[in-house]
């Protein structure tokens, strides 16, 4: 694939300039550009140049096909929108007419000229230069054939929250094997921690646990909890995944999930994960009663036997002798064709927002803590009480956007906090009758039935104050503030500063990428945005695919979202995977890098650079090789190779330099024959 025909100087090139309605024609004189190309690029091999209203329409495509057949075109340059949008369209059109699709070059005169300029004359000249670059470049193009690889029917789903559960069930129900890997002892994710779900106030457990049970019992799902993916090799259709199954110290084949071990374990531990630090668990535990799978894990760090060498109470009392202190971590290797990442989110550490006093002022709670407080199965059995565990608050302040839409923390909107905060207000009103203040910047209730819920909460009597809270303090200044938490806020609707004393403050803290999202992304060969969320292939048109073939993303790993959107993404990712599996094989774009072994000195500069793990180093021959199925043609190694031993198809030196020469054609011409100065 490194071979190219080279410039024979005998190519017959067709140039097609698109109006794109007025998108291009409004700024660029497309007719003049086409005429110019026919006349001035004639000596560069252009035999025909046309303009057309919409090149991407069937009629536009037919125009190209007809010319290929009748004029014997050997190369095609389309000057239109960006390759992201229509490169495939025109390649396919060329293919239909019998021309290898990779002999077609799409140059952008919309995004790179008409949309970014207002000076019509200059934009027209720029379009000419861009087309000239395309003409020079396309002459160096070589016919390429796509690579066909088979698709392994199994799928890896990483993360057992509602996104991963949904994806796993969709694929398993369609009859294909799924490996569902979850880092915690149970699947369920954040949703399992909630009591109610907005806007319908369904019981989260009631709608979630049946799905969890389905996952646990599904014949097509291999459930691997208390496990993490440690290594990913291979490429779309053929991934080899290594999974570290952490030692549970429980024999899964013997354990009945009776719970005696948890009951008898003498070691109580604060549960920082599931109970958000508000409740206790034992050293041998399942995070919650409906956990799937039912087997507990022994927390080595806190187990008296592991730490002090004696105890073994659970072992003595287990009726089925399922405790096994001798277990060690296991490494499993599985083959899968596709991967769905549903790794979820972390919540922002509220301690970082110093002025809101979390961690310093006892009765400031995070949203996750409030979820546990209000959960009937939580540490207070659903009693909304202060940190002392008994006092019911008379007034509660709920602060929206804590750490979101704030340049000090995260610029983005965490998407769920408005509805979550309104849900909290509703729960407080319903369960305690306390006065509730919600402090918001804007109310964003954009999904189905959300705004109705907002109206309902207003009707419930919640008091909404528009303004970003400046401070939460316990320093009383005015009568009635003693012993209270005072919320200092500028009420922007009333236009004045207010101090509102409350008993309890709930911070609707923002969603953040998992603390290890970047490492996970690297392991799977994909990228994160500067915020840390996984980048999708296209934000609108390809929201669950990533730039790495065969790796999909669903749920909050891609960005903050509510449960309905998360479930939709889980199902969407599953549908994409199923479509792949049904195809049985996939054609990979032949845009690839390859190494000329004669030139490669084995310096290993490129070895650590590949975002797709496509680079292999052969120690014996001291040369580097690129796995063509893994390579995505990004060009990182091509640019880095100091010996020029790596070349990329479609981005060869000859092609890029020819394009530059073409772009500068006009400059070169003017240098030779300076235009007379305008009089």
């Amino acid at each position, binding site marked *: 694939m490194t071979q190219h025909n080279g410039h024979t100087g005998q190519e017959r090139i067709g140039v097609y300039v698109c109006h794109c309605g007025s998108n291009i024609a409004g700024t660029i004189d497309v007719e003049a550009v086409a005429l110019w190309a026919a006349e001035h690029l004639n000596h560069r091999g252009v035999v025909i140049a046309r303009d057309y209203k919409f090149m991407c329409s069937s009629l536009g495509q037919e125009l190209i096909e007809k010319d290929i057949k009748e004029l014997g075109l050997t190369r095609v340059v389309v000057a239109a929108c960006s390759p992201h949008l229509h490169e495939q369209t025109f390649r396919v059109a060329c293919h239909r007419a019998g021309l290898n699709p990779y002999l077609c070059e799409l140059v952008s005169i919309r995004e790179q000229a008409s949309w970014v300029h207002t000076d019509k004359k200059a934009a027209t000249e720029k379009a000419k230069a861009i087309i000239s670059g395309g003409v020079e470049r396309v002459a160096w193009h070589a016919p390429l054939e796509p690579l066909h690889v088979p698709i392994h029917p199994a799928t890896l789903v990483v993360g057992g929250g509602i996104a991963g559960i949904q994806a796993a069930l969709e694929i398993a129900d369609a009859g294909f094997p799924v490996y569902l890997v979850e880092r915690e002892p149970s699947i369920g994710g954040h949703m399992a921690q909630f009591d109610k779900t907005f806007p319908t106030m369904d019981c989260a457990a009631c709608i979630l646990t049946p799905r969890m049970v389905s996952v646990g019992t599904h014949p097509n799902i291999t459930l691997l909890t208390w496990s993490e993916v440690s290594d990913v090799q291979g490429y779309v259709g053929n991934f080899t995944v290594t999974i570290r199954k952490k030692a549970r110290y429980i024999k899964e084949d013997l354990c009945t999930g009776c719970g005696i071990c948890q009951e008898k374990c003498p070691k109580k531990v604060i549960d920082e994960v599931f109970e958000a630090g508000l409740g206790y668990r034992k050293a041998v535990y399942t995070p919650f009663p409906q956990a799937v799978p039912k087997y507990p894990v022994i927390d080595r760090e806190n187990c008296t036997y592991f730490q002090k060498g004696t105890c073994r109470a659970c072992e003595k009392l287990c009726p089925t002798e399922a405790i096994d202190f001798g277990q060690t971590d296991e490494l499993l290797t599985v083959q899968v064709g596709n991967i769905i990442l549903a790794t979820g989110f972390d919540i922002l550490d509220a301690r970082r927002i110093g002025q809101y006093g979390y961690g310093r002022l006892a009765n400031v709670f995070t949203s996750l803590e409030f979820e546990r407080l209000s959960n009937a199965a939580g540490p207070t059995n659903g009693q909304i009480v202060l940190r002392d565990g008994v006092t019911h608050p008379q007034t509660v302040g709920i602060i929206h956007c804590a750490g979101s839409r704030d340049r000090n923390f995260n610029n983005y909107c965490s998407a769920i906090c408005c509805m979550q905060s309104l849900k909290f207000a509703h729960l407080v009103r319903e369960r305690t009758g306390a006065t509730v203040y919600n402090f918001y910047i804007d109310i964003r209730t954009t999904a189905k039935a959300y705004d109705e819920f907002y109206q309902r909460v207003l009707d419930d009597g919640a008091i909404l104050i528009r303004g970003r809270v400046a401070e939460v303090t316990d320093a009383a200044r005015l009568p009635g503030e003693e012993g209270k938490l005072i919320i200092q806020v500028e009420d922007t609707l009333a236009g004045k500063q207010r101090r509102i004393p409350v008993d309890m403050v709930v911070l609707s803290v923002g969603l953040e990428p998992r603390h290890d999202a970047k490492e996970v992304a690297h392991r799977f060969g994909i990228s994160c945005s500067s915020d840390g969320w996984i980048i999708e292939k296209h934000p609108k048109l390809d929201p669950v695919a990533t730039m790495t073939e065969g790796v999909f993303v669903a749920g909050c790993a891609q960005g903050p979202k509510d449960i309905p959107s998360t479930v939709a993404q889980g199902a969407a990712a599953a549908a994409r995977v199923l479509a792949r599996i049904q195809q049985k094989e996939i054609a990979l774009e032949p845009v690839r890098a390859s190494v000329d072994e004669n030139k*490669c000195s084995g*310096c290993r*500069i490129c070895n650590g650079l590949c975002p797709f793990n496509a680079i292999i180093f052969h120690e014996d021959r*001291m040369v580097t090789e690129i796995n063509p199925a893994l390579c995505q043609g990004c060009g990182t190694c091509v640019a880095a190779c100091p*010996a020029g031993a790596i070349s990329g198809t479609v981005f060869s030196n000859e092609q890029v330099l020819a394009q530059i020469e073409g772009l500068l054609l006009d400059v070169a011409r003017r240098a030779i024959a300076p235009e007379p100065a305008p009089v």
Partner: protein
Amino acid sequence: MSANGKPKFAMYWAAGCGGCEIAVLNIHEKILDVDANFEVVFWPVAMDAKYQDVEAMPDGSITLTLFDGGIRNSENEMLARLLRRKSQILVAFGSCACQGGIPGLANLSATESLFAAVYDGISTDSQGVRPQAVWQVPEGELHIPEFYPVLKTLAQVVPVDYFMPGCPPEPHQIAAVVDLVIQALHGQAELPPPGSIIGASCSTVCDECPRARNVKHIRAFERIQNLAHIDPTLCLLEQGLPCNGPATRSGCGALCPQAGALCIGCYGPAEGVLDYGARLLSAFASVVDGSTPEEIERCLDGIPDPAGQMYRFGLANSLLRGGRAACEEEAEQELSYEAAHHD
């Protein structure tokens, strides 16, 4: 062929240090083969010769000419054109002729600032004096060669048949090339196609370097004198030393890195590489390990003279060609030349 039937040999020293001339003698007894097989007709460093004698030779009468040094002034250019005309095979010999070499670094500066550095600096007492191409004296008019605004490579002035890199080319490579030409003259071997690089390999110095290599993560670039200890078996670049080996054409035998010194890139770019410095820079940048712009900046600051590091030998032959100041000056001169000839 000369009267004694031997093919003719010439060598010329243009803008360079002369090390290439010495390197030819450094092929030891092989020099006797040169003498046995060639008649040396022009080699100012080794024998007396006049330019008029060369001018008097029939065109194409010299079989092999080794030309070392770059084109710095009108005399260099005149000799390049003359020897091109008289020679069958013209070899750009050594880094300066091939790529401009160290003198090419002067392309970063305009002529006046070069003259100021040379004639106004503390090392001379000729403050304010500038060389004049023509000077009137009582005896008549004196001429010295005209200094050009930029140094050019030999191939930027005349067509070149072969390029032999190195500062200077390694003796074993010179000997091999001499052998090859002699065999070709006897019809026992074929010369490579014109434009080829000879006396070198097509990979890079790492190919010949015995040091162990790993995946690279460079947190800091160090100057060699600042390192307390240098691992004698590990890749120098991995130890934070900006070794140019990865980007430099192989053929020298990796002598410098084997001796614990950095490769400084005298053999120039590898086969097919257009711009040595750009390649090397992007290679270094690719393996810098820093998570913040400040960390990366700090790491790259460990290279105190990036132009000298990346383009020590190749500036004149790079896509950049030279600094803007020098290029503008050259363009101005060309324009005034054109204007003068249009009148």
